């Protein structure tokens, strides 16, 4: 009973589909994760049956056949029993068949390739230490850390890595796929419900692996179109010419806004309207400007091993940091 109890609590926990709606695999928010949860439930059901049978026999045997004080009798020495042995060979085989068929069906079902599908949105995901780049190949736009997707279309992902191996995972929407350096992987996901979902890197990729989070935001089709248009609009630069110059020389050598800048660091177009800074500093808590200010001042404090230099190393004064943070916080996209 002692061992059975946690199992039962576990099952109850599981059946109540707990966990955060934007994170838990047990609370799926899209058809891919739903299919996977169905398979998980089936396998948990079969396996719970096996566990319960073993536990019952085990507990019964331990109580019934425990040695009494001073018992010197020699039990009957049994060599085996063919009937029993056939039973516990055949029943597991049958159980595995029940699990095997849907497994094969979903292995092929989930491997469908939508990369040539005109109705699907094509997104090229590039994983970097420790941030995510999302390039919308059909629209010619690139964003980072926050994946924006429409609710009405399948999203076909092309997954690559820029440095080491990472793994792309949005638990509430669907299972993960690795990004291998030098190899292109493909997978598809669907986001039928509007909302923001938490994405994570699932493969050890260095000291800040734990902090390599991203967000996936599903929006209505019209909102998505407005977002694409806003992303394509000419970049907004800081109003103050001096700050604009500093921003261009110190930030845009790696980052980009709109058509300006480099691509070795996250694209900052419309960064003010994102949920987080760096994937982990939530803007609804401290405010986007404060987060940006903290981040620019000392990125390593929040993400160990981040490539971005601190404000001091980047020769930015405190005032310049504040102005740049203010400009970026106000750089919002209307969609």
């Amino acid at each position, binding site marked *: 009973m002692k061992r059975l109890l946690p199992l039962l609590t576990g099952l109850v926990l599981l059946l109540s589909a707990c966990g955060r709606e934007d994170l838990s695999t047990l609370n799926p928010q899209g058809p891919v994760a739903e299919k996977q949860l169905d*398979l998980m439930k089936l396998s948990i059901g079969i*396996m719970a049956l096996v566990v319960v049978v073993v536990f019952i026999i085990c507990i019964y045997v331990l109580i019934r056949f425990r040695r009494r004080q001073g018992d010197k009798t020699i039990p009957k020495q049994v060599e085996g029993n063919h009937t029993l042995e056939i039973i516990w060979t055949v029943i597991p085989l049958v159980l595995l068949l029940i699990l095997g068929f849907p497994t094969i069906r979903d292995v092929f079902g989930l491997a469908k390739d939508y990369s040539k599908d005109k109705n699907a949105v094509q997104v090229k995901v590039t994983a970097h230490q420790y941030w995510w780049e999302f390039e919308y190949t059909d629209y010619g736009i690139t964003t980072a850390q926050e994946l924006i997707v429409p609710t009405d279309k399948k999203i076909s992902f092309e997954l690559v890595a820029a*440095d080491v191996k990472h793994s792309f995972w949005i638990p509430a929407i669907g299972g993960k796929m690795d990004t*291998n350096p030098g190899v292109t992987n493909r997978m598809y996901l669907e986001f039928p419900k509007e909302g923001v979902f938490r994405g994570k890197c*699932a493969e050890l990729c260095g000291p800040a692996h734990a902090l390599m989070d991203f967000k996936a935001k599903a929006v209505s089709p019209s909102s998505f179109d407005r977002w694409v248009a806003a992303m394509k609009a000419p970049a907004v630069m800081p109003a103050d010419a001096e700050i604009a110059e500093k921003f261009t020389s110190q930030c845009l050598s790696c980052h980009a806004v709109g058509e300006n800048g480099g691509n070795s660091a996250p694209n900052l177009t419309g960064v003010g309207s994102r949920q987080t800074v760096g994937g982990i500093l939530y803007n609804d808590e401290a405010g986007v400007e404060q987060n940006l200010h903290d981040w620019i001042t000392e990125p390593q404090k929040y993400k160990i091993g981040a490539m971005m230099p601190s404000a001091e190393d980047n020769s930015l004064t405190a005032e310049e940091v504040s102005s740049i943070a203010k400009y970026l916080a106000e750089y919002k996209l209307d969609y």
Partner: protein
Amino acid sequence: MSAHAHGHTVKRYRGLMDWLTTVDHKKIGILYMIAGLFFFLIGGLEAIIIRVQLMKPMNDVVAGDTFNELITMHGTTMIFLAAMPLLFALMNAVIPLQIGARDVAFPFLNSLGFWTFFFGGLLLNLSWFAGTVPDAGWTSYVPLAGPTFNSGHGVDYYVIGLQIAGIGTLLGGINFMATIINMRAPGLTFMRLPMFTWTIFITSALIVFAFPALTVGLVAIMFDRLFHANFFEVANGGSGVLWEHIFWVFGHPEVYILILPAFGIISEVVSTFSRKRLFGYSSMVFATVLIAFLGFMVWAHHMFTTGLGPVANGLFSIATMLIAVPTGVKIFNWLFTLWGGSIRFTTANLFGIGFIPTFVMGGVTGVMLASAPADYQYHDTYFVVAHFHYVIVGGLIFGIFAGLHYWWPKMFGRMLNETIGKITFWTFFIGFHMTFFVQHFLGLLGMPRRVYTYLEGQGFDNMNFISTIGAFLMGVGTIAFLLNIFITWAKPRNAAADAWEDGRSLEWTIPSPPPEYNFQQVPLVRGYDAWWKEKMEGNTAMTPAEPIGSIHMPSPSILPLIMSLGLFIAGFGFMYDRLIVAGAGLVITLGCMVIRSLVDDHGYHIEPEDQEKGVKA
């Protein structure tokens, strides 16, 4: 038996030198045990620091880089330097006794195996003092472990330490295969072998086939890191996925290398303490062979999310599920061994019985993981962490604890204290389930593995706290076991030959601890459970298969230690680009090999009159 070896004086050592030069399998077993427990404590300490760091969200006991070093060293140490040596300890202590042999087939190699393992493990752990520790995970995936993204010496310690330690493992595998094939007592046919001997035989075969794959991979990574080769350097045409294949072609059989001996131990313990013959012996043997065979065909289930495509994922899913069938056979055979028996709850048997439901829980999550589409969700999450700790700790470590408590009187002549033993079991057992049961749910709720911290409010906080408390409880259990060892040490050596009174196999027919030649006369085996059979027929001893005579023994040698030391020095030389040091190390090793090849060593004999004096091991 060469006549001129008679009267040949062989230098016999005492004290420390005796332990450094011994080729006696029983002493080598004890050396493996001490070294294995030492590394088990180091790995355990690393685990405790990991759990303390994860006790609450955004904790800062250690930073991300140190945390990665801790998880890498915890995994590597526990698998290669704690679990494997503790198994080798039991193999060495028990196998020759179970088959009625006076030693292993190659005593010198046995010693060499121990010392290469020891120096390899030492080299790996010295990385903590060098300040550059391996940090790419125990799987050491490239490019994270490659020279481009890991430029320090950390991974070099992993690569070179494991190569040196791996020599020891491979030698052990070859040695025990040869021993079990060639050195069985008269009448001890294969289908009369005790189950533990069977599982060690199969495990040895797995070692012989699987470890070379690891060695090849490690050599390739070493070439990449030290000599700028491009096996895994993607920019120059190498492939990271190749390493994953090589690693898991070794890594999955490794899982069975670890667990099969535990199956063997449980079979012995459960059978002895229920006073019953092992139920379905022949199906147990075939299940073991089948598990080993299938174990080589499922490696890619560690790579379902790598992107191998639906055909590979489907095939490996089904192949993996199939392993559940022979494993299930074993579980039910154990249950039906207990059924109708007279079950005695010694500490050894508590671990044996605790193993069964615990391992079943680890096994069923294994089948769940085998279903590839569901694995896309489980992979690289705490669900996997929970699963493999259920099979490795709940399976293998429970098995090792059972085996150590069970064979302790045979190894040392003293019974471990049962009260402390029971404290060990209950704290370790409850602590174990507390630590790892909740981790299944952490994974399902979206917590990836190998994360050094997690943000607040994701639903991970309480379960991580429970998990950490459980880890401390396991620590208490381990400390209780160590206390038990020290307390027992002070007690007189008074264990009987058949220490548990219900012994069934040959090791219980000779004194505890056995004399250095084990069997004064090699016994004649008349059936399965040879000693039980004699007892049931009213005999008080085995029928000897030979007259009393002079016994040939191998001589002790310091060469294995020096050879291993040479490799250890060479390893440092290569790592730090000091080729003179590397060359000197290799010269030491090769020089010892030359000496060993050219100097005749015929061993020595123990004459019957000396045997009566009772030469103790």
